[in-house]
């Protein structure tokens, strides 16, 4: 089946406590490409291999966390259709005009039951990755500056009503369940990994005591070697690391969890497997969370369930 409807994560907008310090962090340490600033003072970034204008927006605020997470859909007709479907499902939506975000078309914005603002949009300027569309070279200097993930890959969002959030993504937006962590009762989901593609996840949700909480935004690296290089760069720059480098049992990704300068967690990862919608979901009972998170050490990292921004 071709990928239609919701295509992929498009952008995250984060709040930071000291804008210039985090601009330096995201540009020089994480190695995203700085794409510009808007009249609200927001700063735009993208991964070096991404072709659309931006995938991360940060803004100055007096508290950390995430404002919104957005997905690109395959056209304006799909945007209209999905908005209708959301409304029919009882989800209120609003339209944000084209241009409110640089080089971005009209967005459909809605709040899901775990307190997160989600957006859909169909159009964002194709600025290219600098390699051209004819006879391209495989990479350029930007691929080696800082950690230099190729793309923003997914987010894990926390909130109380995981079920309500999951249902909208599965029943309305066409996502499917890939993996889950379940409580002692064998039913209650503590965390879910959902895909709209053949990635192991395009979004994940974790049950958290407070709504609207960011667990992490994740960035893709091509190899485990590059994950280890990322760990070196983090340590050289005194980036606070949470977990890793290790391999997640869940989704099999090779990973590092760490924090930006404002305490927003991010992940740099590679690997995993190819998922398809017809595959049986994988289940991790909560007592196997230690190896689900850190397969190498099989050690519980309690920060996974307690530290959010």
């Amino acid at each position, binding site marked *: 089946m071709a990928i239609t409807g919701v295509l992929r994560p498009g952008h995250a907008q984060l709040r930071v*406590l*000291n804008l210039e*310090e985090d601009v330096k962090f995201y540009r020089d340490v994480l190695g995203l490409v700085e794409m510009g600033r808007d009249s609200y003072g927001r700063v735009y970034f993208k991964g070096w291999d991404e072709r659309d204008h931006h995938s991360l927006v940060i803004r100055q605020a*007096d*508290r*950390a966390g995430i404002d919104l997470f957005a997905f690109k859909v395959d056209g304006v007709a799909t945007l209209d259709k999905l908005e209708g479907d959301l409304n029919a499902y009882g989800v209120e939506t609003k339209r944000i005009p084209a241009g409110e975000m640089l080089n971005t078309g009209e967005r459909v914005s809605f709040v899901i039951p775990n307190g997160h603002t989600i957006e859909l949009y169909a159009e964002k300027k194709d600025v290219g990755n600098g390699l051209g569309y004819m006879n391209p070279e495989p990479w350029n200097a930007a691929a080696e500056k800082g950690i230099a993930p190729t793309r923003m890959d997914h987010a894990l969002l926390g909130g109380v009503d995981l079920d309500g959030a999951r249902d909208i993504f599965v029943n309305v937006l066409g996502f499917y369940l890939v993996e889950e962590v379940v409580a*002692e009762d064998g039913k209650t989901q503590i965390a879910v990994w959902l895909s709209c593609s053949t990635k192991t996840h395009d979004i994940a949700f974790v049950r958290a005591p407070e709504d609207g909480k960011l667990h992490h935004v994740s960035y893709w690296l091509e190899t485990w070697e590059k994950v280890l290089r990322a760990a070196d760069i983090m340590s050289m720059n005194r980036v*606070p690391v949470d977990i890793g480098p290790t391999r997640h049992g869940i989704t099999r990704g090779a990973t590092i969890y760490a924090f930006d300068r404002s305490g927003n967690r991010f992940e740099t990862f590679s690997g995993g497997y190819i998922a398809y919608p017809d595959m049986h979901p994988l289940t991790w009972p909560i007592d196997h*969370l230690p190896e689900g998170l850190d397969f190498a050490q099989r050690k519980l990292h309690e*920060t996974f369930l307690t530290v959010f921004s």
Partner: protein
Amino acid sequence: MPNLPAENTQRARGDGMETTHSEMTSGQADCVPSFVTVFIANSGETGRCRTDESLLEGLRRLGKRGVPVGCRGGGCSVCKVEVVSGRYARFRPMSREYVNDRDLAEGRVLACCIRPVSALEVRAIGRMGDRLAATDKTTTGATRLIAEER
């Protein structure tokens, strides 16, 4: 290192501390770090912490677990402490979601955003922190925590 100018020195206004221990001098070869004693009331731990890095980093370096370690960037609040006695300096912004004006005035701050200036006594008051420290550190504990919050 954070590039923020130091904010007010709490309970130590006008003592000139910031000029003697600012980040500006930390790269110099002749800069010898000074240490103060920090007592964590809830765990009974004592540590000798540097005055030129965050209180949380100093405790973490020593393996003292009485104050939980989270984001180390002022964004998550698990490291929130009440400073019972002693002087400290705020050197980076704290998320106002977790620290309001009254907290600041009464010495409830994020341990990752302050540096010790004199000997300190602190008590961990992070929402997760003291409860996690008080319960077993198992997955069951973590699930229970979630269940209680629901």
